[in-house]
C-alpha cells in the first residue's frame, strides 16, 4: 500500500472514531412516546418469553435449573423496565396513564416470573403462570395499541 493510501486509511479510521465519540456523547432526553412504546413492547416480549418458559414447566419438558434461571433473568429485566418507565420524565404528559399502566404490567410480569422462579418443578402452577403471563402480555399489547392510536 502506498503512503497516500495509508494516510487515507488512517484518516478514515480517525473520522469513524471521531463520529462515534461525537454521537455517543450526545445526551439522551426525556422519554418520548416512541421510547415509551418500545418499553411497553419489550414488556410484551418478556411476557411472551416467560410464557414459553412456563410452558416448559407446565409440560414437565424442561430442567428446573433452566426454568429458575430464565425466570430470574426475565423477571429482573421486567423489574428494570418498570424502574426505567417509572423514573423517566414524559415528553408528552398526556401519556401518563399509559405509563402508569405499563409500570403496573411490568410489576405483574416480574411478580409472575418470581413465582415461576420459586416453583420451577410445579406443573400445575406452571400452567397457571403461563396463562397469567399471556394475560399480562395482552395488557401490554393493549397499551401499545393506545399509544400508537390503534386502540378501538
Amino acid at each position, binding site marked *: *500500500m502506498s503512503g497516500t493510501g495509508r494516510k487515507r*486509511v488512517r484518516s478514515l479510521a480517525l473520522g469513524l472514531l471521531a463520529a*462515534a465519540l461525537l*454521537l455517543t456523547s450526545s445526551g439522551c432526553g426525556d422519554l418520548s412516546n416512541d421510547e415509551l412504546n418500545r418499553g411497553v413492547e419489550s414488556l410484551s*416480549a418478556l411476557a411472551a418469553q416467560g410464557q*414459553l418458559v412456563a410452558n416448559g414447566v407446565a409440560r*414437565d*419438558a*424442561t430442567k428446573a435449573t*433452566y426454568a429458575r434461571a430464565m425466570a430470574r433473568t426475565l423477571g429482573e429485566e421486567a423489574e428494570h423496565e418498570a424502574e426505567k418507565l417509572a423514573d423517566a420524565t414524559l415528553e408528552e404528559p398526556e401519556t401518563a396513564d399509559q405509563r402508569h399502566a405499563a409500570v403496573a404490567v411490568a410489576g405483574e410480569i416480574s411478580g409472575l416470573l418470581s413465582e415461576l422462579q420459586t416453583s420451577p418443578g410445579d406443573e400445575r402452577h406452571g400452567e397457571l403462570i403461563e396463562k397469567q403471563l399471556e394475560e399480562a402480555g395482552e395488557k401490554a399489547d393493549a397499551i401499545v395499541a393506545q399509544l400508537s392510536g390503534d386502540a378501538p
Partner: protein
Amino acid sequence: MKVIFKIALGIIAAIGGFLDIGDLVFTTQAGALFRYDLLWAVVLGVLGIGVYAEMSGRVAAVSGRPVFDVIRMRMGFGIGLVALIASTAINLLTVAAELGGIAIVLELLLDAPYSMFVVLAAPAIVIVVALLPFGGIERIFGYGGLMLFVVVATVFHQNPDWGDVARGFVPSLDSSALYLYFVVGVFAAALMPYEVHFYSSGAIEEGWTEQNLKENRLNAIFGYGVGAVLAVALVIVSGYLFHPVGVEPSDLGTVALPMQGAFGETGLLLALGGILFCVGGAAIDSSFAASYNLAQFLGWEWGRYQGPRKAPRFTASWLVFLAIGVAIAQSGINPVEITEYSVVFSVVALPLTYLPVLLIAGDRSFMSDYANGRIATFLGWIYFAVIVVLALAAVPLLLITNGGGG
C-alpha cells in the same frame, strides 16, 4: 484412508466449532425480528468466511506465515499497529463475551451464581489447554458443538412453510435501519477476524505444508458450509417460534427455548450442551488469536506447540488476555451486549484483516502456483467490496438503532 479420516475429522471439527456467541445471538435475534428474511445474509456471511479462511489457510500452509504476520508485512508497521490495537480490543471483548456465555450456560444447567462460573471458566480453559494437544482441543470442542444439530432436527419438527423459508434466501428490499443493522451483524458475526487469525495460526501449529491444501479447501467448503446449516437452522427455529409472539431474545438461554419446545428436556440439554462447547471453543480460539496477533506482530516466539518455556511471552500474554476477559465479563455488562458491540465494531476492522490476506494470496511472486485462481480472486474482491461497505455503515447503524434496540 488415514488421510481421508484426518480430513473428515478436520471437517467435523470445523462444523462444530463454527458457531460462537456472536453467531448464536445475532442469528436468533435476526429470526425473531425478521423471521426468515435474513437467511440470505447468513449464507452470504458464511460464504465469505469460507473464501477467506481458505485463503488464509493456503497462505499459512505455503508460506508458513499466519495472517497477522502477513498484515504487518504487506501493510507496514503503522497500519499493522492500528490493526493490532483494533483486533486486540475486539478479541478481548469476544473473550469476555464467550467466557460470559460459558457462565450463562453453566448457570442455566446448575443454577449457581453467574459470577462464580465466570471466574471458574478461565482456569478450566487453562487446564484444558495445558492437558490436551492442539488438535485434541479443536476436536473435543468441535465434536461437542455437534450437539447443536438438535437445532436442525427442531426445524423438521416445526415443519415451517418451506416456501417462506426458501424466499428468505433471496435478498429482500427492506431498507429500515434495524434490518440493515442486522444484515451487518449477521454478516460480521460470521466473519469475526479472530476466526482467520486463529485458523491460519492453527495451520502453522499443526505443521501444515502444501500437502495440506486439500484438507484446507475441504475444511473451508464443507466445514463452514455445513456449519452454515446450523446458523440457517437457528434463524428458522427462531423465526418460527419467536417472531409470531414477539419474543426479543436478549439472553443466551433463549436460544435453547425452541429445542425445549420441540423435544422437551432432552432437546434443551442438547442445545445447552452444544452452546457450551461452541462458546467454550470460541473462548479458546479468541484468546489464542489475541496472543497470536501480539506475538506475531512483535516477533516473539509463539505457538501452543512450543510450550511455555520456549514461548514464555506468548503464554503469559494469553493468560493476561484471559484474565482481562474475566474482568470485563465480571463488570456486570450482559455478555450478549458485549457480543453485539464486539461483532459490530469488528466490522470496522475487517478490511484491515482481509485486504492483506487477499493481496498476498493473489501474489504470484509470493505464492507461485498456489496463488488465487480466477474464482478465488473474483470472490475475494466481491467480498472485500461488501466488507468495506458494511465497515462504513456499521457504526452509524449501531448508533441509529441504539445497538439493535430499535
